[in-house]
């Protein structure tokens, strides 16, 4: 059994931010990098399936510069068997469709039984790469999976909708599944595993044809501070009424 897990090294901002000269991205000096939280759940899910099957291979694949190998090492320390990193300068600031194109050739060449990715990355929050990748691979897909059971030629998954309602879906395999947080408890890597992960192979590949980017960042900026809270007037009963209206409005979508 071979499972490919797509992982991403995400950047997180602290309280301060500066932008690059062209203002199209944040200055990397202001970012702290780590493995995308969703991807550790995806990796854990892959490892559980491999361990349950008794044998198999979990391959971590990432699109990123050399530093991105740190995040991949995390997945390897958890137990992924090997990794592949895809990069070319064209991929700087790439949109998720472009990233999916970069992933597609490599993933296809692995002939996986299953492809897992996180629902979204914490820095871009596009929630798109996994689904786009599925299309490029010609594979069925389910997004936002909170439970996964492999069958014979199909898998039964839980797709979690807003508000917690679960859609039980039968999906033909091989398939691409985007994994939601909370599906499992990602295992911790001991220091030994972390050290061993340093020795594991990470292959570097160039992407194929990336096509036209699906979007381009024109500029990034700090959102203007609001004027502070809109204050609700009136007595307790009026305030309560308005609160209910606001809650109803926000919750119904």
């Amino acid at each position, binding site marked *: 059994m071979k499972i490919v897990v797509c992982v991403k090294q995400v950047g997180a901002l602290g309280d301060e931010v500066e932008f690059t000269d062209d203002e199209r991205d944040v200055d990397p000096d202001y970012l702290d990098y780590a493995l995308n939280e969703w991807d550790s759940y995806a990796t854990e899910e892959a490892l559980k399936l491999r361990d349950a099957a008794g044998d198999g291979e979990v391959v971590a694949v990432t699109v990123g510069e050399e530093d991105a190998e740190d995040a991949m090492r995390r997945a390897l320390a958890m137990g992924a068997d090997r990794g592949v990193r895809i990069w070319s300068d064209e991929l700087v600031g790439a949109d998720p*469709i472009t990233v999916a194109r970069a992933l597609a050739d490599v993933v296809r060449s692995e002939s996986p039984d299953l492809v897992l990715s996180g629902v979204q990355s914490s820095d871009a929050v596009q929630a798109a790469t996994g689904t786009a990748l599925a299309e490029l691979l010609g594979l069925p897909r389910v997004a936002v999976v909170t439970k996964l059971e492999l069958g014979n030629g199909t898998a039964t998954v839980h*797709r979690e909708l807003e508000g917690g309602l679960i859609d039980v879906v039968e*999906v*033909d395999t091989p398939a691409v599944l985007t994994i939601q947080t909370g599906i499992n408890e990602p295992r911790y890597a001991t220091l030994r595993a972390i050290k061993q992960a340093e020795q594991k192979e990470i292959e570097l590949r160039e992407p194929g044809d990336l096509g036209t980017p699906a979007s381009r960042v024109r500029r990034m900026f700090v959102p203007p501070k609001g004027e502070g*809270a809109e204050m609700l007037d009136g007595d307790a009963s009026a*305030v309560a009424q308005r*609160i209910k209206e606001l809650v109803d409005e926000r919750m*119904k*979508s």
Partner: protein
Amino acid sequence: MSVLVVAEHLRGELRPVTLELISAAKSLDGPVAVAVIAKDPGALTDAVNLEGVDEILTVQVEQEEFENDVYQQAVEQLVAERSPRAILLGFTVGSMGYGPALAAKLGLGFASDVFAVREEGGGLIAERSFYGAKVNGELEFPGHDSVVLLLRPTSWQPAEGAGSASVTAVQAPSATSRARHKDWVEAQAGDVDITTADFLLSVGRGIGDKENLEQFEELAESMGATLSSSRPLVDAGWVPGARQVGQSGKTVKPKVYLALGISGAVQHLAGMKTSGTIIAVNNDPEAAIFNVAHYGAVADLFEVAEELEKLY
């Protein structure tokens, strides 16, 4: 060149985000078409026949409930026939299942979690946030005549007013659905995980004594909210640690964060300030929570709580 809205529905009911998509569509150039893909699309056409909608395109499918291949193939059909310049979907679990695939397959422009769109020089500019909502960014789509956008719910007002749209049935090929709906499982109450709750009612020192907690526990239940709290109540043992919001507790990002009697210590704000809508009630007008809240009331929280209880 039209703007195509794909209506979202669940278990026979139109989802409110659809009305927001219509508002967004109306703000762009070109006629507005709304696609209703369902087993019985006729049951939903009235709900989307609103002022500003020019055309309703119904696609009848075999499947009762959403399946991503079905939607994708139906929308592909509509795109092939209509060549819309923008395809507007909600940034929802459903759309995550096919929107990006559509863009990848047809080579369209794409952006999701978009909260503002406008026309510029014949093209579209979309605005979304990056890096955990700390910065915003403007996106453009050079080289694309057609763009798939997943719009953030509650960013537009729902459209209203009766419309006079034409209704056209569109034939879609019978879809091979490789991911098939089997069953529903209702949402569980289960163990408290405040990080996944959509609505948090959060209490702080302002509630005074432990005895008062019960009133707010009941209010949370009545309002359909999950109870959370700031650190002092957890330190004092009134509330379990799993419910603590803050730097040494959990970081939450619910749709609604209703803060009652919380002053807004830095460590607490760090745990909730990116919540969708923050409503704060505190009797201190200088409380720091008002700096991050979207709505605030300087009021006696017990009185407000009592009044809220009456409404539910």
